[in-house]
Protein backbone atom coordinates (compact mmCIF):
# COMPACT_ATOMS: atom_id res chain seq x y z
CA UNK A 1 0.00 0.00 0.00
CA UNK A 2 2.73 2.41 0.98
CA UNK A 3 4.61 1.49 -2.17
CA UNK A 4 1.51 2.21 -4.22
CA UNK A 5 1.11 5.64 -2.62
CA UNK A 6 4.75 6.50 -3.23
CA UNK A 7 4.43 5.43 -6.86
CA UNK A 8 1.28 7.46 -7.32
CA UNK A 9 2.89 10.57 -5.79
CA UNK A 10 5.92 10.13 -8.01
CA UNK A 11 3.67 9.95 -11.09
CA UNK A 12 2.02 13.19 -10.03
CA UNK A 13 5.25 15.18 -9.95
CA UNK A 14 5.69 15.54 -13.74
CA UNK A 15 2.04 16.60 -14.01
CA UNK A 16 2.65 19.29 -11.40
CA UNK A 17 5.69 20.45 -13.29
CA UNK A 18 3.64 20.59 -16.48
CA UNK A 19 0.96 22.60 -14.70
CA UNK A 20 3.60 25.06 -13.49
CA UNK A 21 5.00 25.38 -17.02
CA UNK A 22 1.52 26.02 -18.36
CA UNK A 23 0.90 28.78 -15.79
CA UNK A 24 4.25 30.33 -16.64
CA UNK A 25 3.51 30.27 -20.37
CA UNK A 26 0.06 31.71 -19.77
CA UNK A 27 1.55 35.03 -18.78
CA UNK A 28 3.83 35.08 -21.79
CA UNK A 29 0.97 34.18 -24.07
CA UNK A 30 -0.90 37.25 -22.90
CA UNK A 31 -0.83 39.93 -25.58
CA UNK A 32 0.90 43.22 -24.79
CA UNK A 33 3.44 44.16 -22.22
CA UNK A 34 3.39 42.32 -18.88
CA UNK A 35 4.00 45.69 -17.22
CA UNK A 36 1.24 47.52 -19.04
CA UNK A 37 -0.76 48.04 -15.86
CA UNK A 38 2.06 49.55 -13.78
CA UNK A 39 3.82 51.75 -16.30
CA UNK A 40 2.37 55.11 -17.23
CA UNK A 41 1.35 55.16 -20.89
CA UNK A 42 4.01 57.76 -21.70
CA UNK A 43 6.93 55.88 -20.10
CA UNK A 44 10.15 56.18 -22.06
CA UNK A 45 11.83 53.17 -23.61
CA UNK A 46 14.65 53.53 -21.06
CA UNK A 47 12.34 53.30 -18.03
CA UNK A 48 10.56 50.41 -19.64
CA UNK A 49 13.85 48.54 -20.14
CA UNK A 50 14.80 49.24 -16.51
CA UNK A 51 11.49 47.90 -15.23
CA UNK A 52 11.79 44.85 -17.44
CA UNK A 53 15.19 44.20 -15.89
CA UNK A 54 13.83 44.66 -12.35
CA UNK A 55 11.11 42.04 -12.93
CA UNK A 56 13.52 39.82 -14.88
CA UNK A 57 11.45 39.95 -18.06
CA UNK A 58 14.58 40.62 -20.14
CA UNK A 59 16.09 37.18 -19.44
CA UNK A 60 15.65 34.21 -21.76
CA UNK A 61 12.45 32.24 -21.17
CA UNK A 62 13.98 29.08 -19.75
CA UNK A 63 15.96 31.13 -17.21
CA UNK A 64 12.86 33.09 -16.24
CA UNK A 65 10.94 29.84 -15.80
CA UNK A 66 13.58 28.23 -13.60
CA UNK A 67 13.92 31.33 -11.43
CA UNK A 68 10.14 31.57 -11.10
CA UNK A 69 9.87 27.86 -10.33
CA UNK A 70 12.56 28.09 -7.68
CA UNK A 71 10.63 30.86 -5.95
CA UNK A 72 7.29 29.07 -6.27
CA UNK A 73 8.72 25.92 -4.70
CA UNK A 74 9.70 28.03 -1.71
CA UNK A 75 6.15 29.33 -1.45
CA UNK A 76 6.80 32.74 -2.99
CA UNK A 77 4.24 33.50 -5.69
CA UNK A 78 5.44 37.08 -6.17
CA UNK A 79 3.48 40.23 -5.51
CA UNK A 80 0.33 41.55 -7.06
CA UNK A 81 1.15 44.27 -9.58
CA UNK A 82 -1.89 46.29 -8.51
CA UNK A 83 -1.68 46.23 -4.74
CA UNK A 84 1.99 45.30 -4.28
CA UNK A 85 0.97 42.80 -1.60
CA UNK A 86 2.20 39.19 -1.79
CA UNK A 87 -0.02 37.03 -3.98
CA UNK A 88 -0.09 34.21 -1.40
CA UNK A 89 -1.55 36.47 1.29
CA UNK A 90 -4.41 37.63 -0.92
CA UNK A 91 -4.97 34.13 -2.18
CA UNK A 92 -5.01 32.23 1.10
CA UNK A 93 -7.82 34.36 2.52
CA UNK A 94 -9.88 34.01 -0.65
CA UNK A 95 -9.18 30.28 -0.85
CA UNK A 96 -10.56 29.80 2.67
CA UNK A 97 -13.83 31.43 1.64
CA UNK A 98 -14.08 29.35 -1.53
CA UNK A 99 -13.20 26.15 0.29
CA UNK A 100 -15.99 26.78 2.78
CA UNK A 101 -18.51 27.44 0.02
CA UNK A 102 -17.42 24.54 -2.17
CA UNK A 103 -17.32 22.05 0.72
CA UNK A 104 -20.82 22.95 1.82
CA UNK A 105 -22.07 22.80 -1.78
CA UNK A 106 -20.45 19.41 -2.33
CA UNK A 107 -21.99 18.10 0.88
CA UNK A 108 -25.48 19.24 -0.14
CA UNK A 109 -24.95 17.92 -3.66
CA UNK A 110 -23.71 14.57 -2.37
CA UNK A 111 -26.63 14.03 -0.01
CA UNK A 112 -29.27 14.98 -2.58
CA UNK A 113 -27.41 13.33 -5.46
CA UNK A 114 -27.00 9.96 -3.75
CA UNK A 115 -30.61 10.11 -2.57
CA UNK A 116 -31.99 10.80 -6.07
CA UNK A 117 -29.57 8.42 -7.72
CA UNK A 118 -30.24 5.61 -5.28
CA UNK A 119 -33.99 5.92 -5.47
CA UNK A 120 -33.87 6.18 -9.27
CA UNK A 121 -31.63 3.15 -9.64
CA UNK A 122 -33.57 1.07 -7.10
CA UNK A 123 -36.97 1.77 -8.61
CA UNK A 124 -35.68 1.68 -12.15
CA UNK A 125 -38.15 2.56 -14.94
CA UNK A 126 -40.92 3.64 -12.57
CA UNK A 127 -42.26 7.18 -12.19
CA UNK A 128 -39.95 7.61 -9.17
CA UNK A 129 -36.96 6.91 -11.43
CA UNK A 130 -38.28 9.33 -14.07
CA UNK A 131 -38.74 12.14 -11.53
CA UNK A 132 -35.36 11.63 -9.91
CA UNK A 133 -33.63 11.34 -13.28
CA UNK A 134 -35.32 14.55 -14.43
CA UNK A 135 -33.80 16.30 -11.39
CA UNK A 136 -30.40 14.94 -12.40
CA UNK A 137 -30.73 16.15 -15.99
CA UNK A 138 -31.82 19.53 -14.66
CA UNK A 139 -28.70 19.63 -12.51
CA UNK A 140 -26.30 18.99 -15.36
CA UNK A 141 -28.13 21.21 -17.86
CA UNK A 142 -28.93 24.36 -15.94
CA UNK A 143 -26.47 27.24 -16.34
CA UNK A 144 -25.76 27.59 -12.63
CA UNK A 145 -24.93 31.30 -12.84
CA UNK A 146 -28.45 31.81 -14.19
CA UNK A 147 -29.94 29.66 -11.43
CA UNK A 148 -28.07 31.88 -8.98
CA UNK A 149 -29.68 34.95 -10.50
CA UNK A 150 -33.13 33.32 -10.28
CA UNK A 151 -32.59 32.49 -6.60
CA UNK A 152 -31.51 36.09 -5.99
CA UNK A 153 -34.65 37.34 -7.77
CA UNK A 154 -36.94 35.11 -5.69
CA UNK A 155 -35.31 34.99 -2.25
CA UNK A 156 -33.50 38.31 -2.11
CA UNK A 157 -35.45 40.69 -4.36
CA UNK A 158 -39.04 39.43 -4.10
CA UNK A 159 -39.17 37.82 -0.67
CA UNK A 160 -36.29 39.68 0.96
CA UNK A 161 -35.36 36.66 3.11
CA UNK A 162 -31.69 36.39 2.24
CA UNK A 163 -29.01 38.85 1.16
CA UNK A 164 -28.25 38.90 -2.59
CA UNK A 165 -24.47 39.37 -2.44
CA UNK A 166 -21.39 39.48 -0.22
CA UNK A 167 -20.14 37.34 2.64
CA UNK A 168 -21.13 39.35 5.67
CA UNK A 169 -23.16 42.32 6.90
CA UNK A 170 -22.09 45.66 5.48
CA UNK A 171 -19.64 44.05 3.07
CA UNK A 172 -17.34 42.94 5.87
CA UNK A 173 -15.04 40.11 4.88
CA UNK A 174 -14.24 38.75 8.33
CA UNK A 175 -16.11 35.47 8.61
CA UNK A 176 -17.93 34.30 11.72
CA UNK A 177 -20.27 31.38 12.30
CA UNK A 178 -23.33 33.39 13.23
CA UNK A 179 -26.62 33.89 11.44
CA UNK A 180 -25.59 37.33 10.10
CA UNK A 181 -22.82 35.62 8.13
CA UNK A 182 -24.28 32.20 7.49
CA UNK A 183 -27.33 33.67 5.73
CA UNK A 184 -24.94 35.00 3.09
CA UNK A 185 -23.70 31.49 2.47
CA UNK A 186 -27.09 29.88 1.79
CA UNK A 187 -27.92 31.05 -1.74
CA UNK A 188 -24.46 30.57 -3.26
CA UNK A 189 -24.09 27.15 -1.64
CA UNK A 190 -27.46 25.94 -2.93
CA UNK A 191 -26.69 27.27 -6.40
CA UNK A 192 -23.32 25.59 -6.45
CA UNK A 193 -24.67 22.27 -5.16
CA UNK A 194 -26.83 21.75 -8.24
CA UNK A 195 -23.90 20.63 -10.42
CA UNK A 196 -22.53 17.87 -8.14
CA UNK A 197 -26.12 16.89 -7.35
CA UNK A 198 -26.82 16.17 -11.03
CA UNK A 199 -23.56 14.39 -11.71
CA UNK A 200 -23.59 12.27 -8.54
CA UNK A 201 -27.24 11.36 -9.09
CA UNK A 202 -26.50 10.13 -12.63
CA UNK A 203 -23.46 8.17 -11.48
CA UNK A 204 -25.21 6.57 -8.51
CA UNK A 205 -28.26 5.66 -10.57
CA UNK A 206 -26.10 3.84 -13.12
CA UNK A 207 -24.08 2.18 -10.33
CA UNK A 208 -27.10 0.95 -8.41
CA UNK A 209 -28.83 -0.34 -11.53
CA UNK A 210 -25.64 -2.13 -12.53
CA UNK A 211 -25.08 -3.70 -9.10
CA UNK A 212 -28.69 -4.85 -8.82
CA UNK A 213 -28.43 -6.63 -12.17
CA UNK A 214 -25.43 -8.67 -11.03
CA UNK A 215 -25.74 -12.34 -10.25
CA UNK A 216 -24.72 -12.12 -6.62
CA UNK A 217 -27.81 -10.02 -5.90
CA UNK A 218 -30.01 -12.69 -7.44
CA UNK A 219 -28.10 -15.18 -5.29
CA UNK A 220 -28.74 -13.20 -2.13
CA UNK A 221 -32.43 -12.90 -3.00
CA UNK A 222 -32.61 -16.62 -3.69
CA UNK A 223 -31.19 -17.47 -0.31
CA UNK A 224 -33.92 -15.30 1.20
CA UNK A 225 -32.17 -12.08 2.14
CA UNK A 226 -34.49 -9.18 2.91
CA UNK A 227 -34.63 -5.93 0.96
CA UNK A 228 -32.72 -4.08 3.68
CA UNK A 229 -29.93 -6.64 3.61
CA UNK A 230 -29.57 -6.35 -0.15
CA UNK A 231 -29.60 -2.58 0.16
CA UNK A 232 -26.62 -2.84 2.49
CA UNK A 233 -24.73 -4.79 -0.17
CA UNK A 234 -25.59 -2.23 -2.82
CA UNK A 235 -24.39 0.66 -0.64
CA UNK A 236 -21.13 -1.11 0.08
CA UNK A 237 -20.50 -1.72 -3.60
CA UNK A 238 -21.46 1.74 -4.78
CA UNK A 239 -19.73 3.76 -2.05
CA UNK A 240 -16.13 3.88 -3.33
CA UNK A 241 -17.10 5.16 -6.78
CA UNK A 242 -19.67 7.61 -5.43
CA UNK A 243 -17.15 9.02 -2.95
CA UNK A 244 -14.53 9.33 -5.68
CA UNK A 245 -16.94 11.26 -7.89
CA UNK A 246 -17.71 13.51 -4.94
CA UNK A 247 -14.03 14.25 -4.40
CA UNK A 248 -13.48 15.17 -8.03
CA UNK A 249 -16.59 17.34 -7.96
CA UNK A 250 -15.21 19.26 -4.98
CA UNK A 251 -12.15 19.98 -7.10
CA UNK A 252 -14.25 21.16 -10.03
CA UNK A 253 -16.24 23.47 -7.78
CA UNK A 254 -13.10 24.93 -6.21
CA UNK A 255 -11.55 25.62 -9.59
CA UNK A 256 -14.74 26.68 -11.30
CA UNK A 257 -16.14 28.91 -8.58
CA UNK A 258 -15.56 32.07 -10.63
CA UNK A 259 -19.05 32.22 -12.16
CA UNK A 260 -20.99 31.76 -8.94
CA UNK A 261 -18.68 34.02 -6.97
CA UNK A 262 -19.19 36.71 -9.60
CA UNK A 263 -22.98 36.41 -9.36
CA UNK A 264 -22.95 36.60 -5.56
CA UNK A 265 -19.83 38.80 -5.12
CA UNK A 266 -18.54 36.06 -2.81
CA UNK A 267 -15.00 37.07 -1.80
CA UNK A 268 -13.28 33.84 -2.84
CA UNK A 269 -10.59 32.72 -5.23
CA UNK A 270 -12.95 32.95 -8.21
CA UNK A 271 -13.71 36.59 -7.60
CA UNK A 272 -10.00 37.20 -7.09
CA UNK A 273 -9.33 35.56 -10.45
CA UNK A 274 -11.98 37.76 -12.04
CA UNK A 275 -10.30 40.88 -10.63
CA UNK A 276 -6.88 39.66 -11.74
CA UNK A 277 -8.12 39.14 -15.31
CA UNK A 278 -9.85 42.47 -15.71
CA UNK A 279 -7.13 44.49 -14.01
CA UNK A 280 -4.52 42.54 -15.99
CA UNK A 281 -2.71 41.71 -12.76
CA UNK A 282 -0.61 38.91 -14.26
CA UNK A 283 1.28 37.68 -11.13
CA UNK A 284 -2.02 37.40 -9.27
CA UNK A 285 -3.60 35.61 -12.25
CA UNK A 286 -0.68 33.22 -12.55
CA UNK A 287 -0.53 32.48 -8.82
CA UNK A 288 -4.25 31.92 -8.44
CA UNK A 289 -4.45 29.56 -11.40
CA UNK A 290 -1.35 27.68 -10.30
CA UNK A 291 -2.59 27.14 -6.75
CA UNK A 292 -6.09 26.13 -7.85
CA UNK A 293 -4.73 23.69 -10.43
CA UNK A 294 -2.22 22.16 -7.99
CA UNK A 295 -5.01 21.81 -5.47
CA UNK A 296 -7.02 19.92 -8.07
CA UNK A 297 -4.08 17.62 -8.84
CA UNK A 298 -3.56 16.88 -5.14
CA UNK A 299 -7.26 16.23 -4.66
CA UNK A 300 -7.25 13.78 -7.58
CA UNK A 301 -4.31 12.03 -5.96
CA UNK A 302 -6.09 11.86 -2.61
CA UNK A 303 -9.26 10.50 -4.23
CA UNK A 304 -7.25 7.87 -6.06
CA UNK A 305 -5.50 6.70 -2.91
CA UNK A 306 -8.76 6.74 -0.97
CA UNK A 307 -10.55 4.70 -3.60
CA UNK A 308 -7.80 2.10 -3.66
CA UNK A 309 -7.91 1.86 0.13
CA UNK A 310 -11.68 1.52 0.28
CA UNK A 311 -12.12 -0.84 -2.61
CA UNK A 312 -9.96 -3.97 -2.37
CA UNK A 313 -11.08 -5.01 -5.87
CA UNK A 314 -8.99 -2.28 -7.50
CA UNK A 315 -5.57 -3.70 -8.24
CA UNK A 316 -2.66 -1.70 -6.93
CA UNK A 317 -0.42 -1.66 -9.92
Amino acid at each position, binding site marked *: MLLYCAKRVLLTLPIML*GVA*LFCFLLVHM*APGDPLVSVLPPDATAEIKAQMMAVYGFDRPYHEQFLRWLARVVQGDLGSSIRTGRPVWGELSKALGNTLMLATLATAIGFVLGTLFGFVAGYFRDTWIDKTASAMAV*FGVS*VPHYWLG*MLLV*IVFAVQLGWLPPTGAGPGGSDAWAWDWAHVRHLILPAITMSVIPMGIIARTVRALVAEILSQEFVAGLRAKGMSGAGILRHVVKNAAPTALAVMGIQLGYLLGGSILIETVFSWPGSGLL*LNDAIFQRDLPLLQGTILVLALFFVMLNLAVDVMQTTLDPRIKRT
Partner: protein
Amino acid sequence: MPAHALGAEHDSPPAPAAIVRSPGYWSTVLRRFLRDPVAVCAACVVLALIAMAVLAPWISPHDPLHGMALKRLRPIGTDGHPLGTDELGRDMLSRLIHGARISLVMGIVPVLLALTIGSAIGVVAGYVGGWTNAVLMRTMDVLFAFPSVLLAVALAGALGPGLFNSLLALTVVFVPPIARVAESVTTGVRGRDYVEAARASGAGALTIIVRHVLGNVLGPIFVYAMSLIAVAMILASGLSFLGLGVKPPQPDWGLMLNTLRTALYTQPLLCALPGLMIFVTSISFNLMTDGLRSAMDIKA
Protein backbone atom coordinates in the same frame (compact mmCIF):
# COMPACT_ATOMS: atom_id res chain seq x y z
CA MET B 1 -11.06 -4.79 -48.51
CA PRO B 2 -11.63 -8.50 -48.13
CA ALA B 3 -9.30 -8.81 -45.19
CA HIS B 4 -11.26 -6.24 -43.26
CA ALA B 5 -14.62 -7.71 -44.05
CA LEU B 6 -13.56 -11.20 -43.04
CA GLY B 7 -11.77 -10.15 -39.88
CA ALA B 8 -14.55 -7.87 -38.74
CA GLU B 9 -17.12 -10.60 -39.00
CA HIS B 10 -15.22 -13.24 -37.14
CA ASP B 11 -13.21 -11.80 -34.36
CA SER B 12 -14.53 -8.57 -33.08
CA PRO B 13 -16.71 -9.36 -30.12
CA PRO B 14 -18.65 -6.13 -29.50
CA ALA B 15 -16.48 -4.31 -26.99
CA PRO B 16 -18.54 -1.91 -24.88
CA ALA B 17 -17.02 1.21 -26.42
CA ALA B 18 -16.25 0.08 -29.96
CA ILE B 19 -18.91 0.07 -32.57
CA VAL B 20 -19.16 -2.95 -34.79
CA ARG B 21 -20.27 -1.92 -38.22
CA SER B 22 -22.82 -4.23 -39.64
CA PRO B 23 -25.32 -3.55 -42.37
CA GLY B 24 -28.26 -1.63 -40.99
CA TYR B 25 -26.55 -0.55 -37.79
CA TRP B 26 -27.43 3.09 -38.16
CA SER B 27 -30.96 2.37 -39.31
CA THR B 28 -31.41 0.22 -36.19
CA VAL B 29 -30.13 3.09 -34.09
CA LEU B 30 -32.47 5.52 -35.81
CA ARG B 31 -35.43 3.20 -35.30
CA ARG B 32 -34.62 2.83 -31.61
CA PHE B 33 -34.08 6.59 -31.26
CA LEU B 34 -37.46 7.40 -32.83
CA ARG B 35 -39.18 5.18 -30.26
CA ASP B 36 -38.00 7.46 -27.43
CA PRO B 37 -40.50 10.36 -27.23
CA VAL B 38 -38.36 12.52 -24.92
CA ALA B 39 -35.32 12.28 -27.17
CA VAL B 40 -37.40 13.00 -30.28
CA CYS B 41 -38.92 16.09 -28.65
CA ALA B 42 -35.44 17.26 -27.62
CA ALA B 43 -34.15 16.72 -31.17
CA CYS B 44 -37.07 18.78 -32.52
CA VAL B 45 -36.24 21.62 -30.12
CA VAL B 46 -32.60 21.50 -31.23
CA LEU B 47 -33.65 21.62 -34.89
CA ALA B 48 -36.00 24.52 -34.17
CA LEU B 49 -33.20 26.42 -32.42
CA ILE B 50 -30.85 25.85 -35.36
CA ALA B 51 -33.57 27.00 -37.77
CA MET B 52 -34.10 30.07 -35.61
CA ALA B 53 -30.38 30.86 -35.71
CA VAL B 54 -30.17 30.44 -39.48
CA LEU B 55 -33.32 32.43 -40.22
CA ALA B 56 -32.66 35.11 -37.58
CA PRO B 57 -32.47 38.13 -39.93
CA TRP B 58 -35.78 37.21 -41.58
CA ILE B 59 -37.85 36.26 -38.55
CA SER B 60 -36.86 38.86 -35.96
CA PRO B 61 -39.27 41.77 -35.79
CA HIS B 62 -36.64 44.46 -35.10
CA ASP B 63 -32.95 45.21 -35.59
CA PRO B 64 -31.22 43.55 -32.59
CA LEU B 65 -28.66 46.35 -32.38
CA HIS B 66 -31.00 49.30 -32.66
CA GLY B 67 -31.67 50.85 -29.27
CA MET B 68 -34.29 53.41 -28.38
CA ALA B 69 -33.33 55.56 -25.41
CA LEU B 70 -36.95 56.34 -24.59
CA LYS B 71 -38.09 52.71 -24.53
CA ARG B 72 -35.62 51.17 -22.09
CA LEU B 73 -36.47 48.10 -20.02
CA ARG B 74 -40.07 47.74 -21.12
CA PRO B 75 -41.71 44.71 -19.49
CA ILE B 76 -42.74 41.51 -21.25
CA GLY B 77 -45.94 42.03 -23.22
CA THR B 78 -45.27 45.60 -24.33
CA ASP B 79 -47.05 46.59 -27.55
CA GLY B 80 -44.68 45.95 -30.47
CA HIS B 81 -42.11 44.29 -28.19
CA PRO B 82 -43.67 41.02 -27.02
CA LEU B 83 -40.69 40.18 -24.82
CA GLY B 84 -39.95 43.75 -23.79
CA THR B 85 -36.78 45.77 -24.35
CA ASP B 86 -33.35 45.61 -22.73
CA GLU B 87 -31.34 48.18 -20.79
CA LEU B 88 -30.54 50.13 -24.00
CA GLY B 89 -34.04 49.90 -25.42
CA ARG B 90 -33.29 47.11 -27.88
CA ASP B 91 -36.01 44.61 -28.73
CA MET B 92 -35.54 41.52 -26.54
CA LEU B 93 -37.24 39.07 -28.90
CA SER B 94 -34.97 40.08 -31.78
CA ARG B 95 -31.90 39.90 -29.57
CA LEU B 96 -32.84 36.48 -28.23
CA ILE B 97 -33.42 35.19 -31.78
CA HIS B 98 -30.12 36.61 -33.02
CA GLY B 99 -28.41 35.42 -29.83
CA ALA B 100 -28.99 31.84 -30.95
CA ARG B 101 -26.41 32.39 -33.69
CA ILE B 102 -23.40 33.20 -31.52
CA SER B 103 -24.51 30.95 -28.67
CA LEU B 104 -24.94 27.87 -30.88
CA VAL B 105 -21.70 28.59 -32.75
CA MET B 106 -19.89 28.95 -29.42
CA GLY B 107 -21.34 25.65 -28.25
CA ILE B 108 -20.85 23.59 -31.39
CA VAL B 109 -17.71 24.93 -33.13
CA PRO B 110 -15.25 24.32 -30.25
CA VAL B 111 -16.55 20.77 -29.88
CA LEU B 112 -16.17 20.13 -33.63
CA LEU B 113 -12.65 21.58 -33.62
CA ALA B 114 -11.76 19.58 -30.53
CA LEU B 115 -13.27 16.48 -32.15
CA THR B 116 -10.96 16.91 -35.14
CA ILE B 117 -7.81 17.81 -33.23
CA GLY B 118 -8.46 15.51 -30.29
CA SER B 119 -9.20 12.44 -32.39
CA ALA B 120 -6.14 13.15 -34.56
CA ILE B 121 -3.95 13.31 -31.45
CA GLY B 122 -5.58 10.28 -29.88
CA VAL B 123 -5.45 8.13 -33.01
CA VAL B 124 -1.83 9.01 -33.73
CA ALA B 125 -0.83 8.42 -30.10
CA GLY B 126 -2.72 5.15 -29.94
CA TYR B 127 -1.54 3.87 -33.32
CA VAL B 128 2.12 4.87 -33.14
CA GLY B 129 2.53 4.14 -29.44
CA GLY B 130 5.91 4.38 -27.71
CA TRP B 131 7.42 7.78 -27.18
CA THR B 132 4.95 9.59 -29.41
CA ASN B 133 2.16 8.24 -27.24
CA ALA B 134 3.96 9.21 -24.04
CA VAL B 135 4.66 12.78 -25.14
CA LEU B 136 1.19 13.42 -26.56
CA MET B 137 -0.78 11.80 -23.77
CA ARG B 138 1.28 13.30 -20.93
CA THR B 139 0.68 16.74 -22.47
CA MET B 140 -3.03 15.93 -22.46
CA ASP B 141 -2.71 14.86 -18.80
CA VAL B 142 -1.34 18.29 -17.91
CA LEU B 143 -4.31 20.03 -19.55
CA PHE B 144 -6.56 17.50 -17.85
CA ALA B 145 -5.12 18.55 -14.51
CA PHE B 146 -7.12 21.78 -14.74
CA PRO B 147 -10.81 21.92 -13.85
CA SER B 148 -12.52 22.80 -17.16
CA VAL B 149 -13.96 26.15 -16.08
CA LEU B 150 -10.60 27.21 -14.68
CA LEU B 151 -8.76 26.26 -17.87
CA ALA B 152 -11.24 28.09 -20.09
CA VAL B 153 -11.21 31.19 -17.89
CA ALA B 154 -7.42 31.14 -17.59
CA LEU B 155 -6.88 30.93 -21.35
CA ALA B 156 -9.61 33.39 -22.29
CA GLY B 157 -8.45 35.72 -19.52
CA ALA B 158 -4.81 35.63 -20.57
CA LEU B 159 -5.58 35.99 -24.28
CA GLY B 160 -8.09 38.76 -23.67
CA PRO B 161 -11.83 38.97 -24.38
CA GLY B 162 -13.22 38.26 -27.83
CA LEU B 163 -15.10 35.68 -29.84
CA PHE B 164 -12.03 34.11 -31.41
CA ASN B 165 -10.09 33.83 -28.15
CA SER B 166 -12.96 32.22 -26.30
CA LEU B 167 -13.46 29.76 -29.16
CA LEU B 168 -9.78 28.91 -28.90
CA ALA B 169 -9.94 28.55 -25.11
CA LEU B 170 -12.96 26.24 -25.28
CA THR B 171 -11.33 24.12 -27.97
CA VAL B 172 -8.27 23.60 -25.77
CA VAL B 173 -10.56 22.55 -22.92
CA PHE B 174 -12.25 19.82 -24.97
CA VAL B 175 -9.24 18.39 -26.82
CA PRO B 176 -7.80 16.32 -23.90
CA PRO B 177 -10.96 14.33 -23.02
CA ILE B 178 -11.62 13.53 -26.69
CA ALA B 179 -7.97 12.60 -27.26
CA ARG B 180 -8.15 10.23 -24.27
CA VAL B 181 -11.21 8.42 -25.57
CA ALA B 182 -9.71 8.23 -29.09
CA GLU B 183 -6.41 6.95 -27.74
CA SER B 184 -7.97 4.18 -25.66
CA VAL B 185 -10.25 3.01 -28.49
CA THR B 186 -7.35 3.09 -30.99
CA THR B 187 -5.07 1.15 -28.68
CA GLY B 188 -7.81 -1.45 -28.39
CA VAL B 189 -8.34 -1.66 -32.15
CA ARG B 190 -4.63 -1.70 -33.04
CA GLY B 191 -4.05 -5.22 -31.79
CA ARG B 192 -7.05 -6.72 -33.59
CA ASP B 193 -6.44 -9.39 -36.18
CA TYR B 194 -7.99 -7.49 -39.06
CA VAL B 195 -5.51 -4.64 -38.58
CA GLU B 196 -2.75 -7.22 -38.49
CA ALA B 197 -4.18 -8.79 -41.66
CA ALA B 198 -4.35 -5.43 -43.43
CA ARG B 199 -0.75 -4.74 -42.53
CA ALA B 200 0.30 -8.17 -43.74
CA SER B 201 -1.45 -7.58 -47.05
CA GLY B 202 0.69 -4.48 -47.52
CA ALA B 203 -1.57 -1.61 -46.43
CA GLY B 204 0.29 1.53 -45.33
CA ALA B 205 -0.18 3.21 -41.95
CA LEU B 206 -2.43 5.88 -43.43
CA THR B 207 -4.70 3.36 -45.11
CA ILE B 208 -4.99 1.35 -41.93
CA ILE B 209 -5.78 4.42 -39.85
CA VAL B 210 -8.37 5.77 -42.27
CA ARG B 211 -10.01 2.45 -43.17
CA HIS B 212 -9.84 0.41 -40.01
CA VAL B 213 -9.07 2.59 -37.04
CA LEU B 214 -11.20 5.67 -37.78
CA GLY B 215 -14.20 3.56 -38.71
CA ASN B 216 -14.17 2.04 -35.24
CA VAL B 217 -13.12 5.13 -33.36
CA LEU B 218 -15.43 7.80 -34.76
CA GLY B 219 -18.70 6.34 -33.45
CA PRO B 220 -17.88 6.38 -29.72
CA ILE B 221 -16.03 9.68 -29.99
CA PHE B 222 -18.91 11.26 -31.85
CA VAL B 223 -21.40 10.35 -29.14
CA TYR B 224 -19.00 11.57 -26.50
CA ALA B 225 -18.53 14.84 -28.38
CA MET B 226 -22.30 15.28 -28.64
CA SER B 227 -22.54 15.08 -24.88
CA LEU B 228 -19.94 17.85 -24.65
CA ILE B 229 -22.02 20.32 -26.67
CA ALA B 230 -24.28 21.12 -23.71
CA VAL B 231 -21.23 21.59 -21.49
CA ALA B 232 -19.64 23.83 -24.12
CA MET B 233 -22.80 25.93 -24.41
CA ILE B 234 -22.95 26.54 -20.65
CA LEU B 235 -19.22 27.21 -20.46
CA ALA B 236 -19.22 29.54 -23.48
CA SER B 237 -22.16 31.51 -22.16
CA GLY B 238 -20.35 31.59 -18.83
CA LEU B 239 -17.32 33.18 -20.47
CA SER B 240 -19.56 35.76 -22.13
CA PHE B 241 -21.30 36.30 -18.82
CA LEU B 242 -17.94 37.12 -17.26
CA GLY B 243 -17.17 39.50 -20.12
CA LEU B 244 -14.59 37.20 -21.70
CA GLY B 245 -16.64 36.21 -24.73
CA VAL B 246 -18.08 38.33 -27.52
CA LYS B 247 -17.96 42.06 -27.06
CA PRO B 248 -21.04 44.25 -26.78
CA PRO B 249 -23.26 45.15 -28.61
CA GLN B 250 -23.32 41.67 -30.18
CA PRO B 251 -26.39 39.71 -29.06
CA ASP B 252 -25.22 36.66 -27.10
CA TRP B 253 -27.28 35.00 -24.37
CA GLY B 254 -24.46 34.93 -21.83
CA LEU B 255 -23.52 38.54 -22.43
CA MET B 256 -27.18 39.61 -22.28
CA LEU B 257 -27.51 37.86 -18.94
CA ASN B 258 -24.56 39.91 -17.71
CA THR B 259 -25.69 43.33 -18.97
CA LEU B 260 -29.26 42.79 -17.78
CA ARG B 261 -28.09 42.23 -14.21
CA THR B 262 -28.46 45.97 -13.70
CA ALA B 263 -32.21 45.49 -14.09
CA LEU B 264 -32.46 42.62 -11.61
CA TYR B 265 -34.52 44.70 -9.21
CA THR B 266 -36.77 46.45 -11.70
CA GLN B 267 -37.43 43.83 -14.40
CA PRO B 268 -36.53 40.44 -12.89
CA LEU B 269 -38.50 38.42 -15.47
CA LEU B 270 -36.73 40.13 -18.34
CA CYS B 271 -33.33 39.31 -16.83
CA ALA B 272 -34.23 35.65 -16.64
CA LEU B 273 -35.01 35.28 -20.36
CA PRO B 274 -31.50 34.83 -21.86
CA GLY B 275 -30.65 32.25 -19.21
CA LEU B 276 -33.85 30.39 -20.01
CA MET B 277 -32.67 30.14 -23.64
CA ILE B 278 -29.32 28.72 -22.54
CA PHE B 279 -31.09 26.25 -20.27
CA VAL B 280 -33.56 25.10 -22.93
CA THR B 281 -30.76 24.62 -25.45
CA SER B 282 -28.47 22.71 -23.13
CA ILE B 283 -31.19 20.45 -21.71
CA SER B 284 -32.37 19.65 -25.26
CA PHE B 285 -28.85 18.69 -26.32
CA ASN B 286 -28.46 16.57 -23.17
CA LEU B 287 -31.75 14.72 -23.60
CA MET B 288 -31.06 14.17 -27.28
CA THR B 289 -27.62 12.73 -26.53
CA ASP B 290 -29.02 10.52 -23.75
CA GLY B 291 -31.54 9.15 -26.23
CA LEU B 292 -28.91 8.60 -28.88
CA ARG B 293 -26.63 6.85 -26.42
CA SER B 294 -29.27 4.38 -25.28
CA ALA B 295 -30.31 3.86 -28.91
CA MET B 296 -26.73 2.94 -29.79
CA ASP B 297 -26.40 0.65 -26.77
CA ILE B 298 -27.95 -2.23 -28.69
CA LYS B 299 -26.95 -5.03 -26.35
CA ALA B 300 -29.18 -3.61 -23.62
